[in-house]
């Protein structure tokens, strides 16, 4: 699915990641933690092909990222749902249109998909906010809308970058619950977060593997979490 084999990534003359290997098994649940600036976002970008490693190999669904052309990248992005910390919406489109955007660009805008869209918005608790514009949403609503957009194509993998970064504890638990539900549907989940409380609370709901970036290396976090 997603496989990183002894990769390194350098930026601006400095090495940010080194000797990193990871294989995301189907249906697994991972947390990625580490201090701010440790390379969590870079790591996620490497996982969905937005960046190429400076050394080593990244394989997405069996294809080497370096050998993928733009068409391959577009197809791969439809199999990997990404939730950005800043959500990245098109502010001139409504929540409904933003969430449906992956369907629109994939030309899968059928009546059946519209019905799924309604269910999805209800599932993330935004059924009543479907016509709102993104700037009108609260932080939690934005994150839930971003999650809905990330999963509308029913991707195999969901990558979330600090999805609870701008929300209160109650909302972060709500988002976590949604991600756990997705995992129970068979989706592979990788969440980058520096919120250790979120990770601790997740242990009650899902069997998660916790990874930590420390000193440019990726390590399996210990029992201190």
């Amino acid at each position, binding site marked *: 699915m997603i496989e990183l084999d002894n990769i390194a990534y350098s930026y601006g003359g400095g090495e940010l990641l080194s000797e990193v290997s990871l294989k995301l098994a189907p249906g697994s649940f991972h947390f990625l933690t580490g201090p701010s600036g440790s390379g969590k976002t870079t790591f996620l970008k490497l996982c969905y092909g937005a960046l190429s490693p400076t050394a080593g190999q990244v394989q997405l669904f069996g294809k080497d990222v370096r050998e993928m052309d733009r068409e391959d990248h*577009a197809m791969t992005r439809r199999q990997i749902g990404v939730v950005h910390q800043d959500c*990245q919406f098109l502010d001139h*489109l409504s929540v409904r249109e933003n969430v449906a955007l992956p369907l629109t660009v994939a030309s899968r805008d059928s009546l059946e998909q519209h019905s799924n869209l309604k269910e999805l918005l209800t599932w993330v608790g935004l059924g009543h906010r479907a016509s709102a514009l993104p700037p009108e949403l609260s932080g939690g609503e934005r994150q839930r809308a971003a999650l809905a957009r990330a999963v509308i*194509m029913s991707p195999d993998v969901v990558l979330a970058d600090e999805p609870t970064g701008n929300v209160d504890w109650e909302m972060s638990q709500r988002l976590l619950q949604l991600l756990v539900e997705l995992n129970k549907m068979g989706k592979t989940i990788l969440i980058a977060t520096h919120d250790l409380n979120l990770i601790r609370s997740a242990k009650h709901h899902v069997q998660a593997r916790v990874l930590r970036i420390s000193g440019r290396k990726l390590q399996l976090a210990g029992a201190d979490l």
Partner: protein
Amino acid sequence: MSTGLQLSKLIMGDAQADRVVPPTGFTARLTLFAAGAMAFLTVFALALSLASGRLATRWGDELAQSSTLRISAPAEQMAAQTAAALTVLDSTPGIASARALSVEEQRSLLVPWFGPDLPLDSLPVPQLIEIVETEEGYDGAGLRLRLQAEVPGAVLDDHTRWRRPLERAAGRLRLLGWVSIGLIGAATAAMITLAANAALAANAQVISVLRLIGARDSYIARAFVRRFTLRALSGAAVGTALGAFSVFLLPATQESGSFLTGLGFQGLGWALLTLIPVLAAVVAYVATGAAARRTLGELT
């Protein structure tokens, strides 16, 4: 897929996809204005080119099969030399008819230059003989030799020295019209490319989001290309209509008309105007497509 099919598919469009790229006021106005202004100018360039073509044909046709014999002789010999010249002309192969112009006809030719009160009787005005040729034409050199021998005061003007420069000038004007249309097309392409580049740069964030969610570059490019093509089409349609209306308001062609009074469209010439918005749309389609492919290729 052919360009025509691509264009028609593009114009039919996808309402949902259209909303993906936010409208940008500045580039929209620039494209509409550029297409409209250029279409307006194209109407005049086309009118100039078509009028020049008609002028060249008219001058060629009117002067090609006619000649003028001018007899300058003392008044007492004028009638005899005119009669001798007509005899020579009547017996020359290739001449269909020859006719001495009456005093009134000669006066009417001079009126534009000297006014209506010209005392023609008191002036040593040469006698003019109008010669109409057959399709085969006559031997100009042979006729000149015969006239030299039999009518010493006769000068044959077969219009060649008038016709050729006039035809050449009309041909140059026509070429100028087409070159103008080409330049206008190139300028339109350049302006629309600039507007498209500005729109693409202004929407870098939108492009980034679209790529994030799996949009192909061809999808992103199409959203921009469709918008610019339709803007160019509508802008050019308005410009063409205004240009056509302005040409329509020009004075009508007159029999004795100068060049400008004939600067209009005739018959199928009006139909050619419908091609201007279509060509503007094609230019916008090609220019925006190239700009989008280049910009998307450069964006990581």
